[in-house]
């Protein structure tokens, strides 16, 4: 069992949470739920409503849409935010590659969470900007 302090140390190193104080980080692990998934398990189902916002604490996940592999995500990465921000069903399948541990926030709590944690929102925007730049880079 990984205890609370280890979990705190882990998420303190994530870009998304890098501006938060220690008590704020502690609140994060209470606000989010912790979920474990095993190899091959579907974490997000493309086309289904009501999914959450996930942050990977440990392990890797595969993102696929319409059967096509889009990305591999690892420790500190997050997913699920696009469907929540746009209010649409999940745009991709996300499956666990091996055992994976995530923090998860229900979709309807994301807006109030981000407004209450503007530094996290800014870091999320930065990550989205990087993804957009990568997607627009010629030849990729």
């Amino acid at each position, binding site marked *: *069992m990984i205890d609370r302090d280890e979990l705190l140390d882990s998420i303190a190193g994530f870009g998304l949470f890098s501006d938060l104080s220690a008590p704020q980080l*502690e609140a994060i692990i209470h606000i989010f739920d*912790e979920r*474990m998934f095993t190899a091959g398990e579907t974490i997000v*189902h493309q*086309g*289904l*409503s009501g999914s*959450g916002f996930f942050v990977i604490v440990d392990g890797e996940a595969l993102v696929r849409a319409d059967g096509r592999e889009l990305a591999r995500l690892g420790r500190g990465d997050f997913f699920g935010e696009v469907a929540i921000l746009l209010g649409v069903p999940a745009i991709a399948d996300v499956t666990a590659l091996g055992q994976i541990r995530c923090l998860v926030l229900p979709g309807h709590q994301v807006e109030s969470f981000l407004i209450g944690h503007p530094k996290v929102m800014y870091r999320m925007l930065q990550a989205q900007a990087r993804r957009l730049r990568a997607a627009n880079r010629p030849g990729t």
Partner: protein
Amino acid sequence: VTVSPRPFPPGPYPVVVIGSGPGGLQISYALRRFGIAHALISNDPAPGGMFRRWPHFQRLLSWTKPHAPAPRGSRAYERYDWNSLLADEPDARALQPGLMDGSSYFPSRPEMEANLASFADRARIAVRFDCAWTGTRRVDEDAGRGFVVETTDGAYRAEILVVAVGVAEPYSPPGIGMELTHHYAAVRPAESYAGHRVLILGKQNSGFELANGLLPWARDIVLVSPSPAKFSVQTRSLAGVRARYVQPYEDHVLGGGVAVLDAALDRIERTEGGDGSLTVRVRRTDTGGDLAVEVDDVISATGFTTPILDLPEIGCSISGRSRLPLLSSWWESTTLPDVYFAGTIGQAAKGLVKHGVPANSGAVHGGRYNAMVLAQRIATERFGVAVPRPSVAPGDLVSTIATELAEAPELWHQRAYLARVFTVDPAAGLVDDGVQPLTHFLDATGPDAVAVTLEADGTGAIYPVLYTRVGGDSQERMLEPDPLLRYDGPDARRTIGRIVREVVPGVPTED
């Protein structure tokens, strides 16, 4: 006078079930219903599990409506009775309402204990009591599959193990001074807190239950945890503090003396020259800043873990603070095959958790259906029992689904978690495949089919969702929420008809 021998002496059994709370009793009943021989053993001297001791303040969170819209004993009545276990025999059904004194629709703890004891008696569930599980090992590879279950009565051998030991081992997080606290499980009689200043760590149901029970006794009550309290009436689900325990919060917001703090514990120490009192130092998570609170008692309402002994050492992966096992959709350990979990541990198989709304597997009214589904799975997959798949005439499908949506307690209690599945079998035609975990349906490939469930999105609406599978492609189709929650009227039938015609040709239009 002859004393009847204790049942299930140590020895080989196809299945060994551990635990005699609601989970163990229900899975034992369900296994027997499918003809699966098994031994049921328990550490306790009598049936009831955690309800032999808790809740502390002697009244449950789960209701049973003695006077409901459906007749007592009917399948539809189960929607209104969260506490009775399931049986086919009329004299073992809906036992809880007959054991309540009418003062509340929440049974008292003794009434719940009597309900479970009465079920064990009427359904003739044999249990080997006072037989403590002490260890587990795998049978040597060359001797075949299975497990050796060590107990205080001797060794059992089982091909399959079903563990229903609850989530009831007190857990306190590590921290400086935590040895000065006592856990929820060790709380003294309420009157011993008369005039005390009490700090409670934890703002979930157990913390608020204590605060509520101590309102007439304690002088000051402070509730502390890092994140704000959540209430079921706000989350519109069982996530959060239940309505019955909201009183301390009202006292807090109206200035009655209860304090509810969003703060992380720094440390607890004996107050200097404080005559045994304790100083609790916390860091506020909402506005920042440190606080020190002087109290007489610190109670840790920080939850419970799963007493699964040495199972992790033989390969059963666990996760999180509650040490819950990692489970498949069918409540089997994903890392230690042939070990299944029933009762409240079944909450570890979380399902979709759509909109953040959890299933009710951790409570009797959810777990009892999981047990029925699990027993059928074990019977069919492991013991080759053939379960009938009744044919459904396409012309009856819409009515069948509408009736399920009006009455099926599995769908009402295990929303977005259990679903009733109708399959277009290439050989047999349209068949009723019974109730299954929804995640299994979504992950499985197979012939065209429709899975019917009810869901909630956290706004207070409860509405049907049909998952269609056509040519291997699954789609989610929702019905409009009805404010009176009726889904068997003409509008709902027309919508259901439109959806199922995509899956089952030959379903007639109703107009």
